[in-house]
């Protein structure tokens, strides 16, 4: 086993570039998944079977198929349909879409956990449906599910290396590039592996604090 600290130092600027891209993809992907997940959760609850059923099937399909293949699908198929996006945009959309099918279930659980009395009170006060959702149900539901959503942000972090395959220069992409230039695999791969452990551990500590703050 030969470990070269110089290679680690050499790799650090690349590591920083990759870290920034990873965090960017993570932040944007989270936003997309939170927003889309809420849309799915609301659509599945619509009374008409013509909306709720296709949405249910679609999300089930996306949840049960590999993100990697979905990524290839979007990366190669969208240009064929005349829609060209940057690799990062495609990646963020793919990862956001994939995880929205998970956050959707989290939202659904949160909505179902709102006591029935809240619905009845909203009806008794003659609140229109829109206001019932925006000021009564969702604020209570979302507050409850923040920790569960946070768990999916951590899972998403661990899926960002997949974006490498569509040429997004995130951490693993940078490590591979560096390894191909210098033929040193051990150092860059170990550095980013440790970085992932540290980031996800810190994130889970942060999340536990947040959980204590929000859920009482």
């Amino acid at each position, binding site marked *: 086993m030969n470990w070269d600290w110089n290679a680690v130092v050499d790799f650090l600027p690349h590591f920083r570039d990759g870290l920034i891209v990873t965090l960017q993809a993570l932040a944007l992907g989270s936003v997309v998944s939170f927003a889309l997940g809420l849309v799915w959760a609301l659509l599945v609850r619509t009374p008409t079977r013509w909306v709720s059923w296709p949405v249910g099937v679609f999300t089930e399909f996306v949840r049960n198929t590999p993100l*990697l293949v979905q990524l*290839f699908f979007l990366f190669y198929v969208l240009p064929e349909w005349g829609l060209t996006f940057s690799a990062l945009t495609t990646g963020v959309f793919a990862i956001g879409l994939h995880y929205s099918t998970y956050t959707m279930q989290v939202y659904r659980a949160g909505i179902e956990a709102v006591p029935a009395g809240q619905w009845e009170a909203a009806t008794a006060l003659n609140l229109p449906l829109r206001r019932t959702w925006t000021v009564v149900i969702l604020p209570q539901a979302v507050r409850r599910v923040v920790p569960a959503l946070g768990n999916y942000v951590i*899972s998403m972090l*661990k899926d960002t*290396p997949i974006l490498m395959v569509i040429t997004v220069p995130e951490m*693993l992409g940078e490590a591979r590039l560096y390894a191909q230039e210098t033929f040193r695999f051990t150092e860059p791969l170990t550095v980013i592996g440790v970085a992932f452990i540290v980031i996800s551990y810190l994130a889970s500590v942060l999340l536990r604090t947040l959980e204590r703050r929000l859920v009482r």
Partner: protein
Amino acid sequence: MTSGLWELVLRGVWVTVQLLVFGGLLATAVSFAVGIARVDRRWIVRFLAGVYTEVFRGTSALIMIFWVYFVLPLAFGWQLVPMWAAVLALGLTYGAYGAEIVRGALNSVDPAQREGGIALSFSPWQRMRLILLPQAVPEMIPPFANLLVELLKGTALVSIMGMGDLAFSGSLVRLALQESVEIYTYILLIYFVIAFLLTRAMRALERRLKAGVGRAPAKAGGARARVPETAGAGGGA
């Protein structure tokens, strides 16, 4: 698509199924070993098992795969056959998630059951094998079913290392046909069907195991089966 290309896809399906079966077996073994170690009486065993889960759940599966493929041969001189390298990386990673499921299910067994075992002077190993596991295992099945689907999705990652699984055969067909909609739709559908069959099989297994516990003389067993499952909730962290 020509029949030759379909044959390529079928060979990919076979590799994916192999990865799923072997990876699933290794992950199950790791889950039970580490999960049981996490409720051990000695703190050092609990601590080491905890470190294992934190480390393997902390990294991404893809980085594990890269590590096993590139660092193990260079650093330690172990060159594994691609299939076993992939199974090792997947099994160790998903086993760490499974360990949390096992730990959660073991903790959710009524403490009185364990105390009853002590009162009847069962040895710790007998308590685990005869009292705790038979009640905990049916509770583990639903989260394990989810984990298996995650593992199936994880097997696609090995195509990045050039292993000829389903996702890889998809890329080959795309290159051959210069057209992506059709082949990727088929590939996604095949993955979906495999996941669907897995979920169905696990549901049948759960019914059988729960019926087994329900028939047991202990009356409380059936009532506790409906306690909401909390073991899988912390999947991400």
